[in-house]
């Protein structure tokens, strides 16, 4: 009779970690059987069954474990990164695929998870913290893959590596040797080091306060060859060159050469790049440029293109540059499809 009960308890004790069972299984079963005998019970009562499930889960996930200093350091770094990420992706009011709440990038989900993991680790809940770090890795990779697939605003591969790498370090059990941890950190850092430039650029761009600072800004770098690399502040993926590239052609100096430099645009301001260039790069005179040609050449867009989506951004450009206000709002420019079309248009009219 007691054997049956003992077997039943043994089964229930599988909720506990194996290590714990090795040390305590026989002793706890002995106490349970003592209690059952004293109460003349031939079967385990529900209260004991439930408390064994709860106790096992607790032992597995939230039993206080020694705080791992290494994990805390990693998680504090992850928290610092996440907080920084919140500030650069803070863009309330902007709405497009990939924006989440007041943030412009879904990677903030990972940030929230890692910060929660940090708080839990501080409270001595190392195991739950590690579980959250694992969720953070999953979220970051999922967000990265989804945004690449569906062309959302999403994290750049570097950001994915950075977040997922820190998550991985935080998720490794504290029993892992220090050497292995340091090696893993070094690998992650090596992957990350080529990256700091964009973030420092963004920091600099933040030092010039602007009206409507909360609006998403674009930072365009114009090289002397005329190539324009663009970046939406907070959008780590730097694939937006085409979005500002066409406007960047407007930055020419007095002799008609291209004026290299870095300009900062608020969203919807691409079409005024000539003025912005003049103000920010100190270009005294803006020569003939692609936008100008587009303006002049609007009738040349061609009958076949009138009414097609390609024609619309051209109208917006000429409308905002010229005296004739077409009246299209910046919303149109925000639309990734419209932006793509307009860059296509640009390529068609070199």
């Amino acid at each position, binding site marked *: 009779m007691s054997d049956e009960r003992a077997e039943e308890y043994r089964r229930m004790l599988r909720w506990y970690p194996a290590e714990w069972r090795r040390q305590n299984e026989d002793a706890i079963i002995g106490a*349970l059987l003592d209690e059952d005998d004293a109460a003349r019970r031939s079967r385990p009562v529900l209260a004991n069954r439930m408390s064994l499930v709860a106790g096992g889960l607790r032992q597995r996930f939230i039993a206080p474990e020694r705080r791992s200093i290494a994990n805390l350091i990693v998680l504090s770094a992850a928290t610092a990164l996440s907080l920084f990420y919140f500030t650069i992706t803070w863009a309330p009011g902007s709405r497009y695929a990939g924006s989440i709440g007041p943030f412009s990038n879904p990677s903030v989900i990972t940030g929230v998870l890692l910060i929660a993991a940090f708080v839990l680790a501080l409270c001595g809940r190392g195991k739950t913290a590690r579980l959250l770090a694992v969720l953070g890795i999953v979220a970051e990779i999922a967000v990265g893959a989804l945004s690449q697939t569906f062309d959302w605003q999403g994290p750049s591969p570097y950001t994915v590596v950075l977040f997922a790498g820190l998550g991985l370090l935080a998720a490794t059990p504290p029993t892992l040797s220090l050497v292995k941890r340091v090696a893993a950190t070094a690998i992650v850092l090596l992957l990350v080091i080529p990256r700091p430039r964009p973030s420092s650029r963004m920091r600099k761009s933040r030092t010039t306060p602007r009206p409507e600072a909360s609006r998403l800004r674009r930072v365009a770098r114009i090289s002397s060859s005329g190539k324009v690399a663009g970046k939406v502040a907070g959008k780590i993926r730097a694939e937006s060159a085409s979005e500002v590239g066409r406007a960047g052609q407007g930055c020419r100096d007095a002799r008609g050469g291209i004026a290299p430099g870095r300009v900062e645009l608020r969203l919807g301001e691409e079409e005024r790049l000539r003025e912005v260039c003049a103000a920010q790069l100190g270009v005294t005179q803006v020569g003939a440029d692609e936008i100008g040609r587009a303006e002049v050449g609007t009738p040349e867009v061609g009958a076949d293109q009138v009414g097609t989506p390609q024609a619309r951004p051209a109208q917006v450009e000429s409308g905002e540059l010229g005296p004739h206000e077409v009246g299209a709002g910046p919303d149109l420019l925000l639309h990734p499809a419209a932006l793509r079309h307009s860059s296509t248009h640009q390529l068609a009219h070199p």
Partner: protein
Amino acid sequence: MVTEMREPTFWVLTVLATGRRHGYALIQEARELSGGRVDLKVATLYAALDRLGQQGLVAIDGDEVVDGRLRRYFRLTDDGAQQLEEQIVRLEANAREARARLRLRPATPLSASAATIGTTA
């Protein structure tokens, strides 16, 4: 500063103060001493003993097999005895303070005076 000790912990340490006990005996005595308020489940007791063991307040004091059934004994460590002492001092100080204040309670019950104010208003 002495932090408050939860009642199950307090009674586990108190039971162990008189000597080593095995799991079920601990549960039984804690229930009796607390006047039935602390009715520990075996799983809860073992979680508590785990924690107290990590804190160095209790220690395993040998296993004994009785009728093919394992009985694990626990004892109070010196640190545990000191913690319990600190709790007693804290609880006594609390009780003294409460007792002294209760003696100074005004003769008229507050509820009665509140009722008087209520009717005159």
